[in-house]
């Protein structure tokens, strides 16, 4: 299982600050988006626009995620 931190509207839609999804070590961010949509239906409308951070840095859809990585998903930022 891969633990994923959620923030802002993503946290609200999922109803949790962190979720776990089924994961095979080394799959990509593209796969993560698919699995989020399948396993957390409430997140589905937001999935295409979610930003993904691995080990506290933004990553693109072809990035690989390890089971030991710190992963977070959240909507576009709006600080300031």
């Amino acid at each position, binding site marked *: 299982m891969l633990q994923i931190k959620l*923030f*802002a509207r993503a946290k609200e839609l999922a109803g949790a600050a962190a979720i776990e999804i089924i994961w095979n070590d080394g799959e990509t961010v593209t796969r993560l988006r698919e699995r989020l949509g399948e396993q957390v239906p409430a997140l589905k409308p937001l999935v295409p626009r979610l930003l993904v*951070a691995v080990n*506290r840095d933004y990553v693109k859809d072809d990035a690989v995620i390890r089971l030991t990585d710190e992963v*977070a998903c959240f*909507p*576009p*930022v*709006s*600080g300031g």
Partner: protein
Amino acid sequence: MIFLTDTPIDYHALTESVRSPQSGAVVLFLGTVREMTGDRRTLALEYEAYPEMASAKLAELEETARSRWPIDRVGVVHRLGHLELGEISVAVAVSCPHRRQAFEAGQFLIDQLKVSVPIWKQENWDDGSKEWVDLQH
């Protein structure tokens, strides 16, 4: 000095912390909770952060700014939690030898903060509704 806080930002102390005899220019930017967005009236804002990543991204921004301008000292503070109208949500203070550098560096820091630091705000509108601010960058 870069940090996130749940309590009101002491911008006087922040400004003092970047002053030094090496710098002839100090620029302070304050972001405050604005009442009107178009025709809609804000009562309050709620801020949330991914604290570990926000701190890391702010440190990166400082490093990038230092590589572009001859910055002496930098202070960035972002408030989190519930903020009433008029309260300060973010403060950026920067000191440089000359004013143009200080203005440019300060503008860079606040502009980049708004696009790359994982912090979000939720509007509390005067009709009682709440809505996450969703900007297209």
